[in-house]
């Protein structure tokens, strides 16, 4: 049975949400990017205990690129997480793989180099290295996801709902623009517009992230994931109203072949910008031969 993982919108202990999900992804301030919110370091133990109490699996995003002078803090948090009851750490920076070995940690790792997790060969490379989970790229097709599943023992996590991060930079491109042209704007989230599409963009202390214009809604495909033993589907709450997100989780939890069309329509009615991402759209890369 495919499990549902959700990212959290706030630190609020929301029991209603927990009814419809099996696992959460949490972030820690200073270590995690691309999440709707992060706990601070002092809050994580209590948060993890809460999810443990309700028998929810907990995955922690430590997915930023770390600089040399952040490595001591990284070692500290890895050691601390190693003693907590979590299911794994999602990493981007390879320093984490090296540190796990050097520090002798038992913690599970999830390969989460978001746009690079595109084939079973590399997934198996990491699997042989002890990395037993993969957060699959959102830029591959459904067929590719299923082919990967058939060729690896790694547990797979596939995002099927929500905005998709598509650009990360250590630059502060929004802040720079405002400073260059002396613009006053205190927005916590901005948008960029091109050809009638708008893209959420967030510039904070960790740099800049841009999200997709559309929300991926693959509730229909969630059943294919289930049939093919995909281990987890990920529902991302970024920029989604809390109540609507809970409703989405509920629909994904209860979907079956009898109600899937109706549920799909309900999600489309809630959001006017849904699509199927790249599940049926192959990207071109060789424009001329």
């Amino acid at each position, binding site marked *: 049975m495919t499990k549902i993982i959700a990212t959290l919108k706030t630190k609020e202990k929301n029991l209603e949400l927990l009814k419809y999900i099996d696992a959460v992804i949490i972030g820690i301030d200073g270590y995690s990017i691309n999440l709707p919110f992060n706990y601070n370091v002092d809050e994580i133990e209590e948060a993890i205990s809460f999810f443990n109490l309700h028998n929810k699996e907990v995955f922690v995003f430590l997915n930023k*690129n*770390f*600089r*040399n002078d*952040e*490595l001591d803090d990284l070692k500290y948090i890895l050691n601390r997480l190693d003693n907590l009851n979590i299911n794994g750490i999602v990493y*981007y*920076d*390879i*320093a984490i*793989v*090296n540190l796990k070995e*050097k520090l002798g940690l038992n913690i599970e790792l999830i390969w989460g*180099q978001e*746009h*690079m997790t*595109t*084939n*079973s*060969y*590399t997934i*198996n*490379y990491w699997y042989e290295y002890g990395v037993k989970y993969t957060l699959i790229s959102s*830029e*591959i097709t459904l067929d*590719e996801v299923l082919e990967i599943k058939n060729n690896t023992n790694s547990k797979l996590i596939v995002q099927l709902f929500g905005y998709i991060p*598509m*650009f*990360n*930079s*250590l*630059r*502060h*491109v*929004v802040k*720079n*623009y*405002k*400073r*260059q*042209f002396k*613009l006053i704007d205190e*927005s916590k*989230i*901005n*948008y*960029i*517009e*091109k050809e009638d599409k*708008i893209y959420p*963009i967030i510039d904070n202390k960790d*740099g800049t992230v*841009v999200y997709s214009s559309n929300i991926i809604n693959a509730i229909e495909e969630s059943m294919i994931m289930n049939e093919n033993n995909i281990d987890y589907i990920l529902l991302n709450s970024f920029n989604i109203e809390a109540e609507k997100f809970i409703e989405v989780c509920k629909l994904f939890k209860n979907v079956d072949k009898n109600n899937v069309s109706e549920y799909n329509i309900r999600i489309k009615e809630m959001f006017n910008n849904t699509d199927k991402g*790249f599940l049926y759209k192959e*990207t*071109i*890369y*060789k*424009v*001329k031969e």
Partner: protein
Amino acid sequence: MKEIVIKKPELLAPAGDLERLKIALLYGADAVYIGGSVFGLRANAANFTLKEIKKGVTYAHSLGKKVYVTVNIVLHNKEAKELLDYLKALDKIGVDAIIVSDPAIIKVAKDNTNLEIHLSTQQSTLNYEAVEFWKKQGVSRIVLARETTKKEIEDIINKVDIEIETFIHGAMCSSISGRCVLSNFLTARDSNRGGCSQVCRWDFKLLSENLKPIEGEKDFTFCTKDLSMLTHIKEMIDMGISSFKIEGRMRSIYYIATVVGVYRKAIDKYYNSNENYEYNEKYEKMLRECANRDSVPQFFNNINDETCQYYNGRMEVSNQDFLGVVLEYDDELKLATIEQRNYFKKGDLVEFFGPNNDIIEYQIDKILDIDNNLIDVVRHPRQIVKIKIDKKLYKNDMMKKLK
């Protein structure tokens, strides 16, 4: 801490085809990096067939120089099937290294070939723990993330005994390399498989959280200025960086000749006589003129503010300064045979530069066409003409407009 022996760094240049490969090596590159027809990150560059790679390697090795081949795409399952044969072919040809970002390719190469492996900047390696990991995987060189600062590079070199390569010149990704799929979403072209359509150079409207326009004098863009490390070459050599990389496999021969030539001279001048080394502003001017874009040192100095952004629109002005290439020089008649690349005429002030000469300034006087008739203007693309000039020129010297 290991002892750092300062070696002369390798000057590594891009080459989109055989002509550019030869120019880069003639102008002083110690090595070039090229893309094959598959598995590279510049799918729209001309790129090299295996036969052309062989020619390029033979030519480079005849000069005692090296060729690295980019195999730095992020694999999808269907491409992986051709990988082994391709790597074996590169090994047989004798390429000096492959540049890789996907660790599955590292494994295939290590298990089946003797290829040396460099880790691509697409892995955005920013710290010494990651460098140490890749070293254990058998990688012999790391191309560091473009965001590394001087202090970070120094610390990495001090802590891990491995060759470090950094960029010294050319265009920059606005994103962390590998962490951008704007191209996939906005143009359906896969940036991590060579299809990047440079969406980061587009203009956008910036909106507030209430979707109200926030308008500056220019539109919002991610676009950054280019990188130029000429002012820091001395420090970079002293730091013990193994290889200085120039970006731009799709750039012209004029660009490659200029940039490689300038850095070659700067490196040689400091390395050969560091007591007397002086920064040469003339070189900076040459770099500026050939790119037509502003350039700054960026993250090296830990600066990534608005002074690094580029708000002057996406299109660079096509470079009209490049006037021609010298094909040969007749010592007795003092005649240079030139292949035209941009319009020029009698009376124009020009500069010649090349690996064997300092810059020669000259006012064009007599121009002969292919039948030795005097002409006043050279307006046809690739037109062959002869110019009377007393100072000796060499094959492959470049002629540019004097500004």
